[in-house]
């Protein structure tokens, strides 16, 4: 597998399947791990970073789940490649900054990705479609066990896995879901829900994680505490709260459908119409409109279009993806034209709602 092959496949987490996939797009587990004694990435000199990269890569290459994996060195990638990987949620924005001995491993179907020499020596994640944290945890737990036999992790019996930032110390675990909550936004209940989430010790962030804004009514909700509870407890706690968020969103959708279906259909229909008719469109406008279309698909107002096709569009219309599809660099204005063309080709032929 090569980097450029990724674009021809839909990532597993965009399949639009799995439990509650009408509201929960995807579930993610990430673990932060470091090697004992080696200075953490931000404090390591180049030879030290190189040594970590080499020993971690060697350990990972031997792991069952990464047998067919793609191993990349960030130093070999150009800006578009890096942006492309961020857009696919395979690595963080931070990982793209400075390329000294940073690595990335991506498993078959993009279920697992491992960043090497990010804030911690290892940041590994497993992504699943729908509300499926358990499955993601099982996958990552197994990889973690396998790797623990090959490298010596920084670990203390008292405090667990030792990480660069004390907010991750303990399990090093962050569990998160990407929730699509348009009805809570439309009915202006979202702030209440987000405040409640914060009070329960969880955080809500935008589409691309930490420090990003919520576009297209997508919210990434995750645990904040990593120490003092087992991995299962942390995941269970998140699950319990997410189940309530799902219920609130579902209730809001039902209420809108009962009381104001005409207005809702109008909004969704106009969004669909604009996407089918535009010749120039920005990514922010696209994401907002796609959010409405996605709601239309979930509520059976838009027919004849597949949920995974809408999901895939959210990623394909991003700047680096457009440039990969075109095979060359595009200016912002050129991208807006290319984006509109791509959307028309994917949506025309589908009947108006």
């Amino acid at each position, binding site marked *: 597998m090569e980097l450029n092959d990724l674009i021809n496949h839909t990532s597993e987490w965009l399949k639009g399947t799995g439990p509650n996939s009408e509201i929960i797009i995807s579930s993610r587990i990430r673990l932060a791990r470091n090697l004992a004694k080696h200075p953490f990435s931000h404090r390591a000199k180049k030879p030290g970073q190189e040594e970590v990269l080499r020993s971690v890569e060697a350990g990972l290459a031997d792991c069952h789940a990464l047998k067919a994996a793609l191993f990349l060195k960030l130093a070999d990638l150009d800006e578009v490649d890096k942006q492309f990987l961020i857009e696919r949620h395979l690595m963080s924005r931070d990982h793209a900054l400075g390329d000294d001995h940073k690595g990335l491993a991506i498993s078959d179907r993009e279920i697992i990705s491992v960043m090497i020499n990010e804030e911690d020596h290892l940041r590994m994640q497993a992504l699943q479609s729908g509300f499926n944290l358990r499955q993601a945890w099982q996958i990552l737990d197994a990889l973690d066990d396998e790797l*623990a036999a090959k490298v010596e992790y920084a670990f203390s019996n008292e*405090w*667990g896995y030792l990480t660069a930032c004390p*907010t991750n110390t303990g399990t090093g675990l962050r569990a998160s879901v990407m929730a699509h909550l348009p009805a809570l936004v439309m009915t202006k209940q979202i702030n209440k829900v987000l405040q409640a989430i914060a009070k329960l010790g969880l955080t809500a962030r935008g589409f691309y994680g930490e420090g990003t804004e919520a576009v297209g009514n997508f919210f990434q909700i995750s645990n904040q505490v990593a120490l003092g*509870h087992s*991995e299962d407890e942390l995941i269970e706690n998140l699950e319990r709260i997410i189940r309530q968020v799902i219920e609130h969103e579902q209730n809001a959708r039902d209420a809108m459908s009962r009381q104001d279906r005409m207005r809702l259909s109008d909004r969704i229909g106009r969004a669909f119409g604009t996407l089918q008719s535009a010749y120039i469109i920005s990514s922010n406008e696209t994401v907002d409109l796609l959010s409405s279309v996605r709601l239309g698909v979930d509520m059976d107002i838009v027919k004849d279009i597949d949920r995974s096709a809408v999901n895939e569009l959210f990623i394909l219309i991003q700047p680096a993806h457009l440039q990969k599809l075109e095979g060359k660099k595009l200016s912002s204005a050129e991208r807006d034209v290319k984006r509109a063309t791509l959307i028309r080709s994917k949506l025309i032929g589908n009947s108006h709602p």
Partner: protein
Amino acid sequence: MTCDVCKQGQATVHLTEIVDDQMTELHLCEECASQKGAQMESHFGLADLLAGLADFGKQLETEEVAGQKCANCALTFEDFRKVGRLGCSECYTTFHRSLATLLKRIHGSTHHLGKSPMKTATRTPKVKSELVELKRKLQEAIDVEEFETAARLRDQIRELEQNKHRKA
């Protein structure tokens, strides 16, 4: 019931906080509660927490560690305060006491209960379970005000912890 903070208003808000089995109750009037509420909210969110780390660090540093350096990576507590990141796994031993306070504030706990990279046989090391048991007995002794027993248990715990550190 009167308010615990201003000792004047009628307490209408009752907060119960449980940290590591220790329960504290706070009875507040509406005015004090809204102030306390504002304080609590300002501590939510990871960004806030990280921004707040600097302050924690400052407060902690005056308690000990001024000038202390990690023998493995040469990080000082001052460095940590600036960047909010530790230098290596050994920093956790060097700055043990300050970090214990910090971890407690961030996570509400200082005991790892998750998985371990060791083989299953060593998953709950004997020293750790013995310590946990002793600490539980100590708390019991304090609760029933048996201070002689408590003092004896405290010394045992201290000895065990020192042994552990020497080994580590």
